[in-house]
């Protein structure tokens, strides 16, 4: 036997050994046949990386879980994850590649609203089911009945904040929000404020990625609100609110809930209430299995975006199983429409907003010393 043959044999033996170790313990169902390809686009680099990286982790974990449980009617699922670098043009190219080049049966993602709408143009025209990791965006998305969303629409995020204000009897609210995500939530919050009997005494906006918002925080403080809402994807306003010594309750929208932002808040990550879905430190009973598996695999605590991606992969797997892997886009879209009890929330994809998340799916957590605890408050509908 030649030296190269020995080396090849050793390589194969090593691979077999490694794959044996890589398998999770417990009995595994066997999958066989051609893998069913599902495409995924996330923002693993660029401005949206704080969302895209957790989503990719959630997707890969879901792929492993689905295959470990026998795949889709015995066939393995293969999730091909691509990075759009937080750019809608790149997302469009990636979607074309996945749909027409790699022939995926469905698309998961992208992470950002702009990319979702751009990609939606291709999936809608070609009747490819898509499950986006965003809340519903501009009006055109309401026509796209093959495009489901696993995160709440911004109106619901605004309602979740106001519900908490009502609970703590805060009627004068100061708001600090960024010019992107914050702007969109704010547009929904303004008309709702009256309905909740809330007066917006100061609304201060800052640029995305601003490194100092002290002036805006000081203005909010001067208006003497009962509570302060922070709607952004940034740690900066949280630090500045502490610096100007705002002592009123701070309520933050879900956008800043990831650990990436919490760690950047430092000592300011204290006494902040967040309406969200997954509190990794204290999960709800139906979230526990996912949280445990995630911790075991990644040695980290999952939050909302990991769970959203996990849900999206399982939802599409269920739809493919229901309609059959070769059913075609239109039948898959039909199979998608309907209720689904996920880790993040209870969805109903037959709803008008293709999300159907009820307000009661929100849990309210409190950040204390950089760690989340789940509060008993929930909205009952």
């Amino acid at each position, binding site marked *: 036997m030649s030296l190269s043959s020995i080396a090849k044999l050793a390589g194969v033996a090593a691979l077999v050994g490694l794959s044996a170790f890589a398998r999770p313990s417990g009995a595994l169902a066997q999958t066989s046949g051609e893998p069913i390809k599902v495409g995924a686009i996330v923002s693993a680099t660029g401005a949206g990386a704080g969302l895209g990286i957790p989503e990719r982790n959630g997707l890969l974990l879901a792929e492993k879980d689905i295959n470990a449980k026998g795949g889709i009617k015995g066939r393995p699922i293969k999730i091909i994850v691509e*990075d759009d670098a937080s750019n809608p043009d790149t997302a469009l190219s990636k979607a074309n590649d996945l749909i027409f*080049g790699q022939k995926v049966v469905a698309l998961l993602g992208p992470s950002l609203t702009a990319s979702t709408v751009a990609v939606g143009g291709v999936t809608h025209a070609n009747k490819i089911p898509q499950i986006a990791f965003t809340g519903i965006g501009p009006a055109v998305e309401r026509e796209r009945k093959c495009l489901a969303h696993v995160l709440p629409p911004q109106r619901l995020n605004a309602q979740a904040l106001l519900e908490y204000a009502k609970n703590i009897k805060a009627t004068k609210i100061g708001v600090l929000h960024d010019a992107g995500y914050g702007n969109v939530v704010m547009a929904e919050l303004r008309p709702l404020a009256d309905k909740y009997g809330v007066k917006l005494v100061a609304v201060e906006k800052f640029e995305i990625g601003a490194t100092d918002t002290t002036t805006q925080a000081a203005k909010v403080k001067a208006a003497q609100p009962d509570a302060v809402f922070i709607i952004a994807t940034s740690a900066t306003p949280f630090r500045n609110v502490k610096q100007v010594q705002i002592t009123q309750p701070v309520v933050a929208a879900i956008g800043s809930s990831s650990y990436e932002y919490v760690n950047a808040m430092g000592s300011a990550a204290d006494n902040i209430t967040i309406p969200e879905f997954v509190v990794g430190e204290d999960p709800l009973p139906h979230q526990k299995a996912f949280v445990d598996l995630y911790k075991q695999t990644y040695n980290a605590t999952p939050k909302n975006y990991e769970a959203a991606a996990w849900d999206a992969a399982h939802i599409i797997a269920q739809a493919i199983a229901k309609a059959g892997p070769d059913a075609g886009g239109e039948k898959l879209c039909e199979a998608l429409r309907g209720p689904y009890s996920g880790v993040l929330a209870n969805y109903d994809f037959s709803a008008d907003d293709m999300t159907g998340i009820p307000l009661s799916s929100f849990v309210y957590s409190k950040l204390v010393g950089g760690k989340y605890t789940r509060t008993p408050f929930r909205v009952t509908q």
Partner: protein
Amino acid sequence: MTSRLLWIVAALVIWAALPFFVPRNIADLLVFTGIYTIAGLGIGLLLGHCGIVNLAQATFYGLGAYSSAYCTVMLGLPSIAGFVVGAVISMALAYLIGRPILRLTGYFLALATLALGAIASALFFEWDWLTGGTLGIGGIPKLDLFGFVLDRPSRYYFFVWIVAFTCMAVAHNLVGSRTGLMLRSMRDSSTAAASLSVDLQALRTQVFVVCALFGSLAGSLFAHHASFVSTQSFTVDRSISFLLIPVIGGATSIPGIVAGALFVTFLPELLSKLGDIHQILFGLALVGVVVLLPDGLMGAYGRLQRRLAPRRSGHDH
């Protein structure tokens, strides 16, 4: 001469056959290459022939895209209206802003264009009643030419590249004309050009307006291709990408602009297969091109040809 003609015919045959043989995602990238070529041409004219660094092309690109989006989606007008409105607004803005800022030179002028780009980017964001802000405007219809809908990259490819070739012809004529001579004299010695009664500011403004027109056309084409526009496509980053096109390809060469556009559209796509490190690799590739090929890809090609030419002529004798 005959061999040159043969080359042109061969290139045209390859160009016409390309979208039928490549996968859809490559056809899509070729459409983007055409769009970026048009936007890059304007920057190339300013950089290569006037010595002006323009970091505001995304502004005009955005104006073209938003005009097309607003006219077709919000007002229900035919697509051509968007192209015309975008071009008129962009050219008017370029003229009004160009007159005062083009008095500046060098770094100061580059900074002034950067400021213009930053202001426009902020306004696209803030004026969400007009631009849709972060959520953007979706559902922009595909272009329809006398009932023939350009709804696939392979169809749109021909339209975009015909526009690109027309823009290249315009740029070629401009560079080869008396105006082109005046431009180069102004670039190489503005004092000498002024002493020969060349109106420097008027000339620079004219080229700036042409650059804005190309940017706006590219933006309108982009809007109809992507069917969606949002602020994320018109940031200063995009202006830097446009500036890279002539810098990489060769600012004075029109084929160089195509080479630069191919570089900025295809290389990130190819590198993205290598994982999250792709942006670092793209940065390294950029540094490599700028350091090793200071006169761009076409400059390097020219040098290679010159180096080979004496050998060839030696063989002939």
